[in-house]
């Protein structure tokens, strides 16, 4: 069976689910069920696509029956199928977490009923961006997910969220404009926007024109992927959004940018023209990001900086243009989506349990909630790259690629990635020591509730009088379930998925290396779209 035949379902199903969720806007329970069922079915469809792509390589479908390169094509290859499966699994977990949060809080703050339809549109946009084989449709996918993310970012319309939302919206719109202008220029230069067709025709252009188009795409995608120095917007805007929203943004949105960078570098503009440049950018992204993370006292902000920093690893793998490096980068993207999302979900649980994510106020959470401590510890060590976790395996792959390359800049990158890994460990160990390990009264500004709380949590409910003081300082922290199981289970699921990336690292590396090999060859992708023999007479 041709897996690409069912590829449009990955976009259509979430969109239909969004429409249904919108109709059911007054029935929160039905909305939750719609979202969960839609994403489960989508995930199942994508697993079938991954299995088929793994067995048969790249496959394409022409939407509406237009012959390529005239219509919109969707291409399923190893990279896009893997991205789809990981992103859908993660977004399903986050949706369940958000539903659990909504149930626990009985939907008291803000227009949460808009959350489910918007979230499903976001997922549809992400799937569209991963699947499309058409540059303008990639732009449409980006816009779908960005417009949905604007709404999610400013959910509830509080003052800090509006402030953060403005930065985010303006930066995203500018990057989209750059992308649109690049598309216009590429169309003017080649007369096509089909990516497989472009892969052939861009190579025939004048080198300086190629360079201009290449750089414009890199800048546009670099903003979306938060590559230094275009990453300034991310730590400013992500932490203020609700916890599940931040988690899904951190996991998916920057990775869509990275995916677009990978396609640009391998399919559209192959060769090593800008590799040194990308390597310099990668090492700066890693170091500047992680130095920012070490300086933060808010857990969510700290995690946002580590997110920026670890984008550098993916750019590093991409810049090597070798099977080892690119394969490790693909594996690293899958690892990072899972682990970064689970850390943000745990940060949301910490906020619920401790009332804040400010490290100066928190303390003693390991005693208060050992389960929360374990849920933080496992993905934290995973992100820092402690063996035997998947972060370690991904970094080993990248370092191996760098050593194989052996050029001075590659050695600088190997050293930079080691330093970044250690500093990540430092930043996360600070969280561990301060939030979980020390006594609550040792905090710089001890939280009276945490200090008064006994290990069984009994004092919490008696010291907070929410009913009498509706606008008191503990409003929203009072008689709520502190760690509702519907929120904990999806978090556990994601943490386990992060560990599973280690257990199944063998087949996954095989898959990502196969993806890297096909991307570097380019022939499978192009022939899947344009038919056999399309590459004849084209310089490799």
């Amino acid at each position: 069976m041709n897996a690409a035949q069912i590829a449009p379902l990955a976009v259509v199903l979430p969109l239909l689910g969004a429409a249904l969720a919108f109709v059911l806007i007054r029935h929160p329970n039905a909305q939750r069920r719609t979202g969960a069922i839609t994403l489960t079915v989508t995930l199942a469809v994508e697993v079938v696509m991954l299995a088929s792509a793994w067995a048969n390589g790249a496959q394409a479908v022409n939407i509406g029956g237009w012959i390529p390169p005239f219509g919109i094509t969707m291409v399923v290859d190893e990279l896009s199928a893997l991205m789809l499966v990981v992103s859908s699994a993660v977004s399903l977990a986050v949706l369940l977490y958000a539903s659990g949060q909504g149930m626990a809080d009985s939907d008291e703050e803000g227009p949460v009923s808009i959350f489910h339809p918007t979230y499903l549109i976001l997922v549809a946009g992400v799937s569209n961006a991963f699947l499309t084989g058409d540059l303008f449709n990639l732009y449409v996918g980006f816009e779908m997910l960005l417009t949905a993310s604007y709404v999610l970012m400013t959910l509830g319309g509080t003052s800090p969220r509006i402030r953060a939302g403005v930065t985010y919206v303006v930066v995203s719109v500018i990057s989209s404009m750059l992308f649109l202008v690049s598309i216009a220029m590429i169309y003017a230069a080649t007369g096509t926007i089909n990516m497989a067709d472009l892969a052939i025709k861009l190579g025939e252009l004048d080198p300086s024109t190629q360079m201009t188009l290449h750089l414009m795409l890199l800048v546009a995608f670099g903003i979306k992927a938060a590559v230094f120095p275009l990453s300034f917007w991310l730590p400013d805007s992500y932490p203020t959004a609700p916890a599940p929203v931040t988690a899904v943004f951190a996991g998916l949105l920057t990775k869509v940018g990275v995916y677009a960078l990978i396609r640009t570098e391998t399919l559209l503009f192959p060769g090593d023209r800008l590799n040194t440049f990308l390597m310099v950018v990668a090492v700066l992204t890693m170091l500047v990001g992680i130095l920012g993370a070490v300086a933060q006292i808010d857990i969510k902000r700290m995690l946002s900086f580590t997110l920026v920093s670890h984008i550098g690893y993916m750019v590093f793998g991409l810049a090597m243009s070798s099977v080892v490096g690119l394969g490790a980068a693909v594996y690293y993207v899958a690892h990072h989506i899972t682990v970064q999302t689970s850390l943000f979900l745990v940060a949301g649980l910490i906020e619920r349990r401790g009332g804040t994510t400010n490290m100066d106020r928190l303390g003693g959470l390991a005693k208060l909630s050992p389960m929360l401590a374990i849920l933080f510890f496992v993905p934290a060590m995973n992100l820092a790259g402690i063996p035997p976790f998947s972060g370690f395996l991904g970094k080993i792959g990248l370092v191996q690629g760098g050593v194989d390359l052996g050029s001075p800049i590659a050695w600088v990158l190997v050293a930079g990635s080691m330093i970044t890994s250690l500093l990540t460990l430092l930043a996360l160990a600070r969280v561990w020591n301060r939030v979980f390990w020390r006594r609550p009264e040792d905090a710089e500004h001890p939280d009276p509730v945490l200090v008064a709380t006994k290990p069984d949590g009994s004092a919490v409910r008696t010291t907070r009088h929410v009913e009498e003081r509706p606008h008191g300082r503990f409003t929203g922290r009072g008689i709520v379930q502190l760690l509702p199981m519907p929120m904990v289970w999806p978090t556990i699921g994601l943490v386990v998925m992060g560990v599973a990336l280690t257990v199944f690292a063998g087949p996954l590396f095989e898959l990502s290396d196969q993806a890297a090999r096909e991307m570097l060859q380019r022939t499978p992708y192009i022939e899947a779209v344009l038919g056999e023999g399309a590459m004849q007479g084209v310089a490799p």
Partner: protein
Amino acid sequence: MTVNLTLLLVMGVLFAVGVYLILERSLTRVMLGLMLITNGANLLLLSTGGPAGLAPIFGVGVPAEAYSDPLPQALILTSIVISFAVTAFMLAIIYRSWVLGRQDEVQDDIEDRRVANQPTFDAEDDAEIPAETTEFVPPDEAEETPATNRARTEREK
């Protein structure tokens, strides 16, 4: 390919004014700037289709070169719809910002200010650790423990 000079000039002006407006602090001007840049990009898309021709609807006996290029027009249509949605959203944000704070200016990030102003001394990392010389504390300096308390209350009886 021939290029229409008027379109090119208008495009340049739109981009220049748009960039100028985006650099303002007032959100309304930023939004206007984004709108102008979007329109500039749309004109660029339009000009990539080459000179104008017949409407791209199939007619018998009309040579292919006589038609306008339909693809840029389809792209512009999509891009107009998208920019319409984004503009509506920006207006909503500006209104919300006005309702909340009676202002539509871009605010400084509080956390950034805090990080910029924080002292280089960090109590956790840089404080001197008092050196312990002995495990055995003289009795008069010993802290009150339950045992000493009990001894004292018994004495008072």
